[in-house]
């Protein structure tokens, strides 16, 4: 079940395949959320292909690490990673958002490898808190990973979960914040300023690390550092670029929830990802 330690080049190749799937999925569905999927895909690649102990052949192994995508609209990122990992065939990704498929528009518990349904923001992190508590009760040595969005932390429930994570000393919980600075209606700091998230979360008693969320070495070393925490949970603020890898999507709020509008833009996106 242990991952062979893949090189950074190998991880980059997996991310590239996943990015292509993301674009194909949202273009095929004529809807979906490419921006936040492209911003978090490098983190998901490191988690599933380097850090997490999970086995697609034995998906309910009680000792497995658990992952919750609290920003469940980035379902194309998770579904593509799960298929690349071998939970289900890659050709099923074309069913995304279609009536004949299990691949619901937002992350769905019925999909192999998915640990919890998500999509309404502010919830997956609390679910991760519960999973981390359960692991402590059972003396498990597994890790609970949660990815949250930076628009998502405007939800009050996220801060309730920060309080609970501190209270119960959940050092088996690693939360990664996709800090891409954009939400549906525009830029996060215009919609609802969060300012220095690091200070805020540190004052809730958490360890906080800040990294470049597209740099594999930084992602790996931050996770390794989080795993050394003796007492408190860790938030990794991953500074990312919304729409990363597709020039016209990068830092453009429009592509939070819109696919490429034309075949030209679709092909351009695929070309740019392939040639990157």
């Amino acid at each position, binding site marked *: 079940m242990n991952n062979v330690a893949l090189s950074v080049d190998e991880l980059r190749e997996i991310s590239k395949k996943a990015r292509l799937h993301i674009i194909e999925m949202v273009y095929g569905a004529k809807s979906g959320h490419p921006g936040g999927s492209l911003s978090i895909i490098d983190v998901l690649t490191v988690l599933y292909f380097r850090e997490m102990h999970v086995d697609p052949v034995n998906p309910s192994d*009680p000792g497995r690490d*658990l992952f919750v995508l609290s920003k469940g609209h980035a379902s194309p990122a998770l579904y593509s990673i799960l298929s690349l990992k071998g939970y289900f065939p890659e050709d099923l990704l074309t069913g995304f958002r279609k009536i004949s498929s299990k691949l619901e528009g937002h992350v769905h*518990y019925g999909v192999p490898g998915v*640990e*919890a*349904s*998500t*999509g*309404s923001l*502010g*919830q997956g*992190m*609390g*679910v*991760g*808190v*519960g*999973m*981390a*508590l*359960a*692991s402590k*009760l*059972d003396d498990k040595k597994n890790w609970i990973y949660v990815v949250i969005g930076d628009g998502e932390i405007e939800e*009050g*429930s996220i801060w*309730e*979960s920060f*309080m*609970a994570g501190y*209270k*119960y000393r959940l050092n088996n919980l690693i939360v990664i914040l996709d800090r891409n600075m954009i939400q549906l209606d525009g830029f996060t700091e215009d919609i609802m300023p969060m300012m220095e998230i690091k200070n805020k979360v540190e004052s809730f008693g958490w360890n906080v690390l800040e990294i470049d969320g597209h740099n594999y070495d930084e992602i790996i070393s931050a996770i390794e550092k989080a795993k050394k925490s003796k007492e408190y949970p860790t938030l990794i603020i991953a500074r990312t670029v919304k729409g990363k890898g597709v020039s016209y999507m990068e830092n453009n709020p429009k592509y939070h929830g819109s696919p490429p509008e034309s075949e030209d833009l679709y092909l351009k996106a695929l070309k740019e990802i392939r040639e990157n």
Partner: protein
Amino acid sequence: MKSESLREAYGDELARLGETDRDVVVLDADLSSSTKTAIFGKRFPDRFFNMGISEQSMVLTAAGLALSGKKVFASTFAVFLSRTYEQIRQSICYNNINVKFVVTHAGITVGEDGATHQIVEDVGIMSGLPNMKVIVPVDSIETRSVINYLYENVRTPSYTRLTREKFPVLNDGDYNFILGKATTMRDGNDVAIIANGAMVSFSLQAAMELKTKGIDARVINMSSVKPIDRDAIIKAARETGHIITAEEHSIYNGLGSRVAEVVTQEYPVYVHRIGMNDTFGKSGSAWELFDYFHMGVSNIVHASESIFREEKKNANIS
């Protein structure tokens, strides 16, 4: 007739389950001494999580614990759990997991605390959720039986609605709750009063008065609101032809609405609903409030008599 606390019965039963099953875990949101989950909390502090005044966090943490295989009970006052409707919808019911909500201080029987705390919409809110079961126990004995039934037989979401006030003990000690099954508390073929919670004992008192007026009322305890006992409702409609519903809840989306749905589909007869009529509660003693809101024994008697005598137009006038 002796009265006993439903929430104390819950707390005792929970602690008993905790003795034998380490997978039973309990969450509360700073009301454990009132909901009585504190009994469990004192005995099993490592499996009791007081999440503070953070109901969203309580519900979401409950979801995570259940997804990891725990048998989860989560409690607070009914009115405060209702603020987490959407967490319950997405993270509990959509995942269809083993979280048992047992809420207390529901309805107008919180009395003096007033309208802010008297939730009379919760049965409707919860019944609308796919996968959710909704139960309104009538007394301490039924409460114990419900908790054990849910523990033994149900691995999916449920909502059990308890009260602050003690209620008269109506069931015998050997009573066994079955989800989706009503209990006939009194037989009669002139009119059927389908009630739950506090309203069952009022309905039994009303039935005794009706007897003196020559009317034989059947009284049914419909503690299981969802799933509801369709057969008992259809039988009551067929055999009596007159149905009264009585609940400590809004007449919209509660027991009365569910009964009316079954009756209109299966065997249309006149249904008169007694309960809160699209209104908030108010401060006052618990038992005064039933009369204030036209939900007392005399109101049940009057409505039953009126519809039995086919004077339907008078049924609303007390």
